[in-house]
């Protein structure tokens, strides 16, 4: 069952084609890897699907519905959520409250329900001391908060944008296990990564972008041996 489908999705910035005729599908409950060299358009892809940018061409279908014209907040309520590469915590709210925002508005829960949900997510992801100030957190904790924030909207489709960046080897393993745990809850996940080990271990399928175009699609083993992908710079082997 297809949960997300893009048809000839294109997005220009000035003269630059950040996305060029991207047609791809996300199957329900799969973990789809999105890889490609720097500047390939991976984050732009997420931004267009999430509604931060409107496409200059093409259509997006989510759960059978054409969402191409819908604003970002509506897409969030429909079940699309994402993390941000450069984490932007909300100052003025503590850790728990940061996470609550998603439940309050993405899902429309009451404050009490949202608080419970946020606490539950903190436990699920291994975040302790929930009412603390967000200026004193480790890199791993910030990433977890970011994921919790995105999960608070109870999405059907979750995009993780380079959540492994800057983590140690042990932390990466912990994060991989976490992503599996999230997936086992019944969620479709799109994961953008540079660390190939993560892609290899987690994903069912991979989509490779280069210069805004899809140059390969398939299982990791298949894609990693594709000469086109190899020439486009495969990224870190680890």
């Amino acid at each position, binding site marked *: 069952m297809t949960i997300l489908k893009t048809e000839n999705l294109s997005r220009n910035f000035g003269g630059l084609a950040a996305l060029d005729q991207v047609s791809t599908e996300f199957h329900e409950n799969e973990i789809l890897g999105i890889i490609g060299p720097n500047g390939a358009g991976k984050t732009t892809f997420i931004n267009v699907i999430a509604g931060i940018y409107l496409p200059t061409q093409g259509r997006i279908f989510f759960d059978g519905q054409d969402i191409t014209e819908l604003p970002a*907040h509506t897409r969030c309520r429909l079940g699309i959520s994402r993390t941000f590469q450069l984490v932007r915590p909300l100052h003025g709210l503590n850790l728990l409250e940061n996470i609550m925002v998603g439940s309050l508005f993405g899902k429309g829960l009451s404050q009490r329900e949202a608080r419970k949900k946020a606490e539950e997510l903190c436990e699920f992801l291994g975040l302790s001391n929930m009412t603390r100030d967000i200026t004193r957190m480790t890199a791993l904790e910030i990433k977890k908060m970011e994921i919790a924030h995105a999960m608070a909207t109870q999405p059907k489709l979750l995009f993780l944008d380079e959540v492994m960046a800057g983590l140690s080897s042990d932390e990466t393993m912990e994060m991989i296990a976490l992503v599996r745990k999230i997936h086992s809850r019944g969620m479709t996940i799109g994961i953008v990564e540079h660390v190939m080990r993560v892609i290899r271990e987690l994903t069912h399928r991979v989509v490779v972008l280069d210069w805004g175009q899809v140059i390969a699609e398939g299982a990791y083993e298949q894609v990693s041996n594709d000469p086109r992908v190899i020439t486009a710079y495969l990224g870190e082997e680890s």
Partner: protein
Amino acid sequence: MKGSRYLLYIAVLIILLILPLYTGVYLLNVLDIILIYLALALSWDMLLRSGQISFGMAGLFGVGGYAAALIHLQAGVSPLLSIVLGGLTAGFLACLIGMAVLQLRGMYFAIVTLALAEIFRVIIRNFPDLTGGPEGTILPSAIFAGNSTKTYWLVLAVAVISVIGSEIFRKTRIHFALTSIRNDEIVAKSSGINVFKYMVFIFAVTSAIQGITGGAYAHIYGFVSPEGSFSLNFTLLPIAMTLLGGMHSTWGSVVGAVLLGVVSEFLKLQIPYGHLLVYGIIIVITILFFPQGIVGTIGQRLKKR
């Protein structure tokens, strides 16, 4: 814990309510001014929490005043009701303006609001038959026939409304929306917040409060005029008060309003013409040296320990 806080608030309210029995007219008049500026300061802060600045308090205050006065005069509506309608008028106008202008925020919005007072002045001058033109309109009598106790209670009610409004903005989900929007609109959008709708709503509500305050003022002093009702005071002082006391909190505006209100009474007696200068200087100094204001700086010091 929460229970004792509410008891404290109720105690303060009761004290404020029975104050007229123990004090003279002069003190009540000073309090009137403080409470009016407090309401304006709170309404300014409520919008500030979303990350937007309005310089239009004088404009919406004056609109509320004129609406209240004219509705009372032309339609025979009772003064109290006309004050409420004045507030609704201001809120409605703000809604229209907001829908047009809030797609682009930041300096565009700020400067549009800066122009509001002047625009409303021009419009009012151009309909002299309805509004009394450049000389303004005098109301047949001040509200409550000038009874200073009842006037004080009216102004107290307006101030309490704005305090309640500010607390609602801090305790409900609106607080989360405001803080998210202020920090990062993209994150807010991605969390399911309809940023534009919230902004228009907040602008309309805070403008309605300013309109009600203006309506009360108009009826208390018994007249409206293009120069007086849209005076720069009503924009300048609330900003200075909130900045001095501390933004993003109810207490900050209260502290700032009381402090500057008392100071302004002294200043008016010492230097009758220069006191607005002081407020401008206060704004410049607080932005440069302690943008958190008094309450904010104390709060930070306490946290560091």
